[in-house]
């Protein structure tokens, strides 16, 4: 199964505007969706997660499971894997369901990307 095929069910979920897999250092690997610059989304998603990981070390709260950035109409969700990041852009009202679906996709995505689970 390709990465695109793993992402497709999530991308077709109600309210989801875009899904992207990128490397932890900010390079886009695969994206389904329109209207967003893949390179900028990948770079800033990596930055958000890196700052969260640095804070995790200092706060001793464990690893970040995900980061959620809320805007007036949209929510950006960032899920870290060992070497990659899954980003989901979703309408605010549909965000809770998207979180659950994305968490369900992560193990298959990790397997496809060769990341340990």
């Amino acid at each position, binding site marked *: 199964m390709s990465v695109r095929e793993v992402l497709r069910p999530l991308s077709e979920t109600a309210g989801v505007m875009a899904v992207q897999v990128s490397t932890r250092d900010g390079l886009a690997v695969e994206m389904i969706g329109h209207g967003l610059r893949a390179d900028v989304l990948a770079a800033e*998603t990596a930055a958000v997660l890196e700052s969260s990981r640095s804070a995790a070390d200092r*706060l001793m709260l464990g690893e970040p*499971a995900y*980061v*959620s*950035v*809320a*805007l*007036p109409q*949209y929510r950006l969700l960032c899920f870290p894997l060992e070497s990659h990041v899954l980003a989901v852009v979703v309408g605010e009202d549909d965000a809770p369901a998207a979180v659950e679906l994305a968490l369900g996709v992560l193990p298959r995505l990790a397997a496809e990307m060769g990341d340990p689970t």
Partner: protein
Amino acid sequence: MSLDSELRVLLDVRGVTSVCVVGSDGVLIGGAEGADGDLMRVAELVPSALGSSRVLAGLLGDGEVTQALVEFDRAPVLLVPLSAETAAGGGHVAVFTLSAVADLGRVRFRLKTMLPRLIAALPV
């Protein structure tokens, strides 16, 4: 009421383990914490977490960040700009550490009702 007094009211909300107000540069302005809290370290999270969030907000063209949540293994941390000015890069941010994500709704509701008092208690 002083800022710290207002924040102690928020600490009484079930699920809140610490709360502080931080400048956009990460300087701690005021706070209230439970026994295991470490407000200074929580405050350090603000500049980098919100900085990248603002760039992402610009990418989506959907206005300013209204809040950011980082769910760590042991506890979620919620960051809420206290004004549109804060969301755009100036002003103050309220930072909560919570027991669980399930407490989010309760915290958001109380913060919404207390927001005018919090803003009034901020240093000018």
